């Protein structure tokens, strides 16, 4: 048996290795260097921003980059409507977490159930298709009429907005599984339960996660929209306050902080997925 083993492992020589190509240093290589180009791109962007502020082509509608940094710092120490920047960030984040949790905990199981059972699908799908094309923001007036201007209406908008991608991705995730993978379970004598638990869920997992990721970025759009319409807290509220006080540095500060948190929360989900689905090949998502 040992002879087979050695022969076999020489054929089974499949360990993957990362190849690092080292090129000699040269001016051209330096100019083509990715990081160098990144630096150029960013420098040009900030220079243009500074220039637009300096020439006053937008009047008082814009603040210089360093003013925005100062504004962020000020907002962190001072309070607007009784809350510092941290408080407002938490207000927005809190709405997102609640809305996102409600939507995903209903939409993901429902999507899976629709994909697994055609009766559930036949009952839910027509209504879902009717609601699906509606932009979430279209609900805002209804939300205020039904839930008032407090937290529930904002959370409602987030739930409506994130529900659709959560459900669609879980549904497609189960539907697009190779039927042959189910055959593997069946030919080995596995039950329908084995098919769902051992093939259905793990195979659909990446798609479900993609849905969660899309939902999360939609949630940020939704919370902002809701806060711009009516709120006493949140990053959208800071932006609106800046506008009403004619303080472009506050507006931009709100935007920058919002972008940062939207990026950070998406990053968390990306890493969570990498941790939970280590079998997925690295795909670059710019």
């Amino acid at each position, binding site marked *: 048996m040992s002879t087979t083993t050695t022969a076999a492992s020489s054929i089974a020589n499949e360990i993957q290795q990362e190849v690092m190509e080292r090129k000699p240093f040269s001016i051209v290589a330096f100019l083509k260097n990715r990081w160098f180009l990144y630096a150029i791109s960013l420098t040009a962007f900030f220079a243009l921003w500074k220039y637009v502020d300096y020439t006053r082509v937008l009047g008082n509608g814009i603040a210089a980059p360093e003013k925005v940094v100062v504004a962020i710092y000020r907002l962190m120490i001072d309070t607007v409507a009784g809350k510092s920047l941290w408080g407002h960030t938490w207000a927005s984040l809190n709405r997102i977490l609640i809305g996102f949790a409600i939507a995903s905990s209903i939409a993901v199981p429902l999507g899976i159930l629709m994909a697994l059972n055609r009766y559930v699908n036949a009952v839910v799908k027509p209504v879902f298709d009717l609601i699906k094309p509606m932009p979430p923001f279209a609900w805002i007036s209804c939300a205020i009429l039904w839930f008032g201007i407090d937290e529930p209406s904002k959370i409602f908008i987030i739930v409506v907005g994130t529900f659709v991608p959560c459900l669609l991705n879980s549904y497609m995730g189960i539907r697009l599984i190779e039927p*042959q993978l189910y055959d593997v379970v069946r030919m080995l004598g596995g039950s329908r339960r084995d098919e769902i638990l051992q093939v259905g869920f793990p195979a659909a997992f990446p798609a479900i996660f993609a849905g969660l990721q899309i939902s999360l970025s939609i949630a940020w759009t939704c919370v902002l929209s809701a806060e711009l319409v009516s709120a006493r807290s949140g990053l959208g509220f800071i932006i609106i306050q800046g506008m009403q006080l004619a303080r472009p540095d506050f507006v931009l500060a709100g935007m920058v902080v919002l972008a940062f948190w939207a990026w950070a929360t998406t990053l968390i989900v990306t890493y969570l997925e990498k941790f939970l689905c280590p079998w997925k090949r690295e795909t670059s998502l710019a």
Partner: protein
Amino acid sequence: MNATVEAAENRRVKIEVKDLTKSFGNLLVLDDISFNVAQGEFLSIVGPTGCGKTTFLNALSKLIPTTKGNIFIDGEEANPKKHNISFVFQEPTCMPWRTVRDNVAYGMEVKGFSKARLEERLRYILDLVGLTTTADLYPNQVSSSMEQRIAVARAFAVDPDLLLMDEPYGQLDVKLRYYLEDELVSLWKALKSTVIFVTHNIEEAVYVAERILVLSNKPTKIKAEVKVDLPRPRSLIDPKFVEIRKQVTELIRWW
């Protein structure tokens, strides 16, 4: 002639296929097929493309219902929940979320092997097919020929009463195919499984099998049965080997 394996006629009948008929709507694919397979026999089935080889194996493994007829294992109607049937599909079917090791172990998990027995057998099988060094990789980190070997290892690992293989090496290059055919034969000898091996490569069939069933075009019947009574390891240029290969080729060229 074959020293290690007793002649098939003298062995106990393991699998009985009786009047197996399958049609899809009006299309009659399998027409009243009957045959037996002996305990521990290596049976090869050759037939033209589209004649219903995959359909035939799907019916044997109960993945699809038959129109008429049945298959008996040890005299009992075949049932994947009760009998130990294993199937290597035409396309690789590894589970991407399981490592090579866990893929090979999957069948044993479904069959409810005890932990100790599973571990022991897993080590033995991984070693036998040379997957020990790659055991912790995921299927997308190995080439697709390796994936097919994983599927073969998974199928053998459950110690099946009946092992069905559907052109598992159809897509591989010749060198690797020869290698894997040898590996398959040694697995079969070591584990004493009953194997039905479907292919449309005649040379492959003659190389691995003890007996070959030649299928006709649709509606498919068994056209001929050829015994391959050659010692192993077989040589592709042995005059007797060439003679049998020609005989099977003639049978297929007939129509």
